[in-house]
């Protein structure tokens, strides 16, 4: 207040001409953001250039993209990618929870087993693991269960044990389990010890404490990293095309090996991966909101609100995106 009255009339802006006493009633408006406009316009120009080249460069062959986008072979590949990813993630996480539990147990032997498993699986490239499981038959033509150096109880021919898809399922499940166990362990360690002690003091069993108290509170730490893993795995399933499994990428390869339309067919695969990843990102956003109950982040804005707030050109109160 004293600052305003001290200002000389000549430097006073017209907007603050209202008598000093009325300032308490003055409308509060947002800051002017000229730079935001510049950035927005520059962005629009770059986007327009991108769209222009995509549409006018004939080598993208959008006609071909359109022809194959919904073709049967591609859709069959898509379905295989989807269910392989889903199956691998579900079994990988179940195994991962077990591995994390072993790692956190009081039993030193179990802890070492868990550590060794994670160390080994994370050290070997997934492609190598995939080929290993696929070539299992040449390594061990017969697998048998029995006493070492003693009698055998059961024995099977490995040639018929794992088909290409089964080898992919086993190899990727093991890969997911190793990474998931570390994500889960990190989440569990992030929950305050007082929560476990309070649950113990109420007489909850260990399993119940984990399920009802620790896991729900570990979820905010587990979900973002798991979203990464899931999306990574959606794309990593394309590894299986090397063992001739017709997933989304495998299906496109088969077609362009035939007709040499490489770019348009890769665009077909890319468009599908983009769509799937977008859907998964929305799913992750929803899960994060669901599990932030009871925290200060619980009143985080909905997804449409975040998007609206990130359109820079409309001045309005902005809910902050992210944290």
């Amino acid at each position, binding site marked *: 207040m004293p600052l305003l009255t001290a200002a000389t009339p000549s430097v006073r802006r017209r907007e603050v001409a209202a008598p000093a006493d009325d300032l308490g009633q003055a409308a509060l408006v947002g800051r002017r953001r000229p730079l935001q406009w510049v950035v927005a316009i520059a962005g629009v120009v770059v986007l327009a250039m991108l769209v222009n080249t995509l549409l006018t460069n004939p080598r993208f062959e959008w006609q071909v993209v359109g022809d194959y986008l919904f073709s049967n072979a591609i859709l069959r590949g898509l379905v295989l990618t989807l269910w392989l990813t889903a199956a691998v993630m579900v079994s990988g996480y179940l195994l991962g929870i077990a591995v994390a539990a072993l790692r956190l147990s009081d039993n030193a032997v179990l802890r070492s087993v868990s550590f060794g498993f994670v160390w080994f699986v994370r050290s070997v490239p997934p492609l190598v693991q995939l080929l290993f499981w696929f070539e299992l038959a040449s390594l061990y033509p017969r697998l048998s269960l029995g006493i070492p150096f003693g009698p055998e109880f059961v024995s099977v021919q490995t040639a018929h044990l794992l088909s290409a898809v089964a080898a992919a399922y086993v190899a990727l499940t093991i890969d997911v389990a190793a990474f998931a166990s570390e994500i889960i362990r990190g989440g569990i360690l992030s929950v*305050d010890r*007082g*929560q476990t*002690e*309070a*649950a*113990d*003091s*109420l*007489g*909850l*069993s*260990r399993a*119940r404490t984990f399920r*009802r*108290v620790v896991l*729900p*509170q570990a979820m905010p730490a587990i979900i973002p990293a798991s979203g990464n893993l899931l999306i990574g795995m959606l794309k990593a399933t394309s590894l299986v095309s090397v063992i001739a499994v017709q997933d989304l990428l495998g299906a496109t390869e088969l077609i362009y090996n035939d007709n040499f339309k490489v770019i348009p067919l890769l665009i077909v695969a890319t468009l599908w991966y983009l769509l799937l990843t977008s859907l998964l990102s929305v799913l992750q956003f929803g899960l994060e909101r669901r*599990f932030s*109950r*009871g*925290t*200060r982040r*619980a009143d985080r804005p909905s997804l449409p609100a975040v998007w609206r707030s990130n359109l820079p050109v409309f001045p309005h109160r902005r809910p902050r995106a992210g944290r």
Partner: protein
Amino acid sequence: MAGSVRIRNLHKSFAGQEVLHGIDLDFAAGSVTVILGPSGSGKSTLLRCINHLESPDAGYVEVGDEIVGYRRDGHRLRERSPREVARQRSRIGMVFQQFNLFGHQTAAQNIMEGQLASGVPSDQARKRASELLARVGLAGRENAYPSALSGGQQQRVAIARALATDPDLILFDEPTSALDPELVGEVLAVIRDLADSGITLVIVTHEIGFAREVADKVIFVDHGRVVESGSPAAVLDHTENDRARTFLSAVL
């Protein structure tokens, strides 16, 4: 007697450092005991040994007619299974300095959790949660999350949670130490109301006035030993022990 406590020769070390050097104590069923002592003297460790959040290195704690965490096996004490320990703990409530309410659950859900674990149907557990909230002066706050409650309110929910499984004994570890001064009274009032309920109360606190008012027995712990034990008047006003005197003159 359900709720009576008997502690014999209790020893506990952390990393080779002995924290409790052989504690012998008896609390009668339904009595109120206040434990005093300087910071680091082993009060929390003593309480946590009573419900087996810490396992003793020697000695035992008996609540009612069962040894907590162990069972007699000839001349030895053999560790109980986690399931049995959980059953024993459901008869022993605990209230923590930092409240430790489950952050992802509402006040009512916090109070229901222990009941659900011991098999109470959920509508019954919910009804009891509402009754207990009313009893601690929080009627109608069933759906509040801990983050939306003041410290005093959170601690009262924690007390309701400890009461929900009908314990014979409740342990309080500095229940008002994390609270702003003006919120201490509301929590002490709730504990005071429990004094004649027949539940055995063991309270670690620095609230001397409160101890004088509600305690049947006051215990002074120093360096992992019980150095004074007796009626509030005997320990608070007429102690012969130098350390206890120094401590009392500091906190009064």
